[in-house]
């Protein structure tokens, strides 16, 4: 597996629906064997981009390459892609076996070969016992596997997923997420996966592309996206509860806001550190230190606890710091109550600083 080869390349893609420009000059390279997640809020154009790659939408301008072939005008079935839909779009009146083999029969693959491939896919996905059933008699998770199987039997290079888990309940979603990851490790195909669920994105992706309004805001590994968001949008979009954003000023080596001044010595600026600038600092709830950890850093403040949400495994605390609301993530066993006043510390080396006007990372 050569991670540098591009499996899918999108060049200057434009897509308009009438006057609505849904995608604009979009460029993206997806590596061979990579699991790429397209993440963004509803209506940002994720499905549209996926459909363009699949050939289900006729592009307005630009080019699409798969495995180096220009497939801009190719039929969906000739692109070497398989697709899994949110609703699965299984053929309801065919058995699972029929669903899996329908495409192959249509391509006049010999019977023996079809059987072999179906058997292999059923084996990989562990759906042998279901082969004779119809989709109506399957659970959500089983349906999803069949939908994947339909792509699998066709031996395609690229798998496209459009929110394949969003119809399932939380528990099943967690399980299938792990299964999908395992499947990717086993198959080593390129996978492009659309979701608006950030947990899915973080856990599944080799790289994540965050989209907004038909443009890609940031493309990077989950770690980069989470820890070094390139702009306020990405920073606010990723992370739950969301990153704390505090507006203020950079003054020399400090970030100063209403009743708070944080030393910036540990912070890695992209360029040179500006001397003075209106800025926004973003600190994730788990990077607001409490207890012993708070004591060990220089920048501290006292906050009043307002709401405590106990999740069992951890505790989310909503507190007020002057005029700001501050979210903290604490241990599951933490005993803070609404009304408590606690001291918190800030580790600015793990924070993000953004230009207040361009919203780009500093």
């Amino acid at each position, binding site marked *: 597996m050569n991670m540098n080869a591009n499996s899918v390349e999108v060049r200057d893609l434009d897509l308009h629906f009438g006057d609505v420009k849904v995608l604009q000059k979009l460029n993206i390279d997806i590596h061979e064997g990579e699991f790429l997640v397209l993440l963004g809020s509803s209506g940002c154009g994720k499905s549209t981009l996926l*459909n363009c790659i699949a050939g289900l939408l006729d592009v307005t301008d630009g080019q699409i390459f798969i495995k180096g072939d220009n497939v801009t005008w190719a039929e969906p*079935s000739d692109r070497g892609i398989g697709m899994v839909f949110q609703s699965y*779009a299984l053929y309801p009146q065919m058995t699972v076996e029929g669903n899996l083999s329908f*495409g192959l029969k249509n391509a006049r693959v010999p019977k023996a070969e079809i059987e072999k491939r179906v058997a292999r896919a059923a084996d990989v996905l562990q759906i042998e016992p279901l082969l004779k059933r119809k989709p109506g008699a399957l659970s959500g998770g089983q349906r999803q596997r069949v939908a994947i199987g339909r792509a699998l039997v066709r031996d395609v290079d690229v798998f496209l997923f459009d929110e394949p888990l969003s119809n399932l309940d939380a528990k099943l979603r967690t399980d299938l997420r792990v299964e999908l990851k395992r499947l990717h490790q086993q198959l080593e195909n390129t996978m492009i996966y659309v979701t608006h669920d950030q947990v899915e994105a973080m856990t599944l992706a080799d790289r994540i592309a965050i989209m907004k309004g038909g443009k890609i805001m940031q493309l990077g590994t989950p770690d980069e996206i989470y820890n070094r968001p390139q702009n306020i949008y990405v920073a606010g979009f990723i992370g739950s509860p969301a990153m704390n954003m505090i507006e203020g000023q950079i003054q020399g080596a400090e970030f100063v806001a209403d009743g708070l001044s944080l030393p910036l010595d540990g912070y890695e600026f992209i360029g040179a550190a500006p001397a003075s600038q209106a800025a926004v600092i973003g600190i994730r709830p788990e990077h607001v230190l409490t207890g012993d950890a708070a004591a060990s850093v220089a920048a501290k403040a006292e906050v009043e606890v307002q709401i405590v949400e106990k999740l069992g495994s951890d505790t989310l605390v909503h507190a007020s710091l002057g005029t700001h609301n501050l979210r903290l993530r604490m241990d599951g066993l933490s005993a803070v109550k609404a009304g408590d006043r606690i001291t918190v510390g800030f580790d600015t080396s793990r924070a993000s600083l953004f230009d207040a006007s361009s919203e780009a990372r500093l």
Partner: protein
Amino acid sequence: MSHAENPRGAERSARRPRQLFRNLNAKFASLPMILTALVVFVGGTAWTVAHSFTKSRLLPKWDFVGFDQYERLWNSNRWMISVENLMIYGVCSLVLTMVLGFTLAALLDRKIRFESAFRTIFLYPFALSFIVTGLAWQWILNPDFGLQGVVRGWGWESFTFDPLNNPDIVIFGVLIAGLWQGTGFVMVIMLAGLRGIDEDIWKASRVDGIGVAKTYVRVIIPMMRPVFVTALVIIASGIIKLYDLVVAQTNGGPGISSEVPAKYVINYMFQAQNLGQGFAASTMMLLSVIIVLVPWAYLEFGGKKRG
């Protein structure tokens, strides 16, 4: 505080109300439906069936003759021809209306230009009565003035298309008019059904490389089963009632070659003034409807599946 300490409250609504008086408003509002169902449909039908066992002539009379009317009915050549015609018309009309209606709907669903113009063209005959339909097609199929005459006028002297004058094919002449009137509505129903199909199914079949025609046949049509059932019921109820069209277009002729059961009923009730015979014929029609319909209605409406 437990309920035992509050006997007043406990008494007020602890008792299960009489079932009959629950939803009184709904029952009151359903009265027209109940009356229609019981008095008109059940009552009227029972009356008709009962009188089919009598010798009623011009006026209904309780003059019991057992199955005589039925015996005569099934010995009547005209009734046999009527039944046969209805079968031919029914099967052809059912199949062709479905096929044509679906095909047109599918064509319109292909994101074409002028969709609404085409749709209006296919639908407008539905606005016209069978009387009008029958007259118009009688005119067009008239061998001297109509289609045949015109084509012969163009020089193709041997061209023959005179369904209304040929006893062997006259029922197909009626069929042409019937299709013209009724397919538009079925098309609309089918179109609505097609629009309800998950867009992703189409995408999936394209990714699977399945041609459009094949996708319709193998995937879409099976998915539209409920729509087809609805259409089927509508078409079938129209077929059984086939009367006005025949009267307007052929009046049963040539000879009795385009007679249909509903016309038999009417003719025997009012022209022959043999109500008993007419009632016997309508009872047979009803019986066939019930045999076909009751299992379906039970599944569709009476079953427990929707509570």
